[in-house]
C-alpha cells in the first residue's frame, strides 16, 4: 500500500527546503512555491487520474511561531 506521508518524512530536506512538494507512489514528482505548484498539480491530475496526489510543505530549519 502506498504511504506518501511516510515517504514525505524521508524526503531530503535540504533539497526541498521551504518548498511544497507533490508526491505520487512515494516519490516527489514536482516541487516549488505555492504559486508554481498549481499548474504542476493540474498536469499531474490529468496524467494520473486514478491516483491521489500528496501535497505538503517541506519547512525551513527555523523555529515556527504560528
Amino acid at each position: 500500500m502506498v504511504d506518501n506521508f511516510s515517504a514525505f518524512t524521508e524526503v531530503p530536506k535540504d533539497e526541498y527546503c521551504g518548498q511544497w512538494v507533490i508526491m505520487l507512489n512515494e516519490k516527489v514528482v514536482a516541487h516549488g512555491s505555492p504559486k508554481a505548484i498549481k499548474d504542476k498539480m493540474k498536469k499531474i491530475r490529468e496524467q494520473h487520474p486514478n491516483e491521489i496526489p500528496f501535497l505538503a510543505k517541506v519547512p525551513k530549519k527555523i523555529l515556527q511561531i504560528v
Partner: protein
Amino acid sequence: MPTFSFGYIKEKGISRPKIPFLVNANGVETETAGLIDSGSDFILIPKDIADTMGIELSGSIEEADGIGGKIHLRIGIVTIIIKKRGKKILRNVKIHIPIDEKIQSDENEKFDEILLGRDPFFKYFLKVEFNENKKRVRLIPNRRTP
C-alpha cells in the same frame, strides 16, 4: 470509537505534531499534512494551496487578527478524512483561506502552512492529547459529534 495516534514528524531537527489527512473538495481528492495547532481558532489553508486542492473560494469573508495584523479570510467547506491502520474518520469541515494580496507572495511564509485549529477540528474529538515526551499526538473521536 477508534483512537488515532500519530508520531510527531521531525523536520530538520524539530519535531512537530503534523498529521496526514485527505481533503475532498467537490470530488477533487488530495492527500496532505497539517500542523495540529491548539493556538489557532480555525483550520487555515494557504490560498494557492486551496486552489491547488480544488477548493472553491465562494464562501463569505471574515476578518481575523494574526501575528502580522488584521487579515481577511474566505470561508470554504471541504470533507477531511483521517485514516490510520484501517480506522477512518470523515468530517465536513469549515476552513479559512487568507485572501489579502499582501500575504500571497511566495516570499511571505506567515500563512504558508496548513493549520488544524480548534474550530472545528478539535470539536470533533473528545480529546486531543499532545505527549511532548513521547512526541506523539492522540485523537479520540467524540461519539456525539455527527
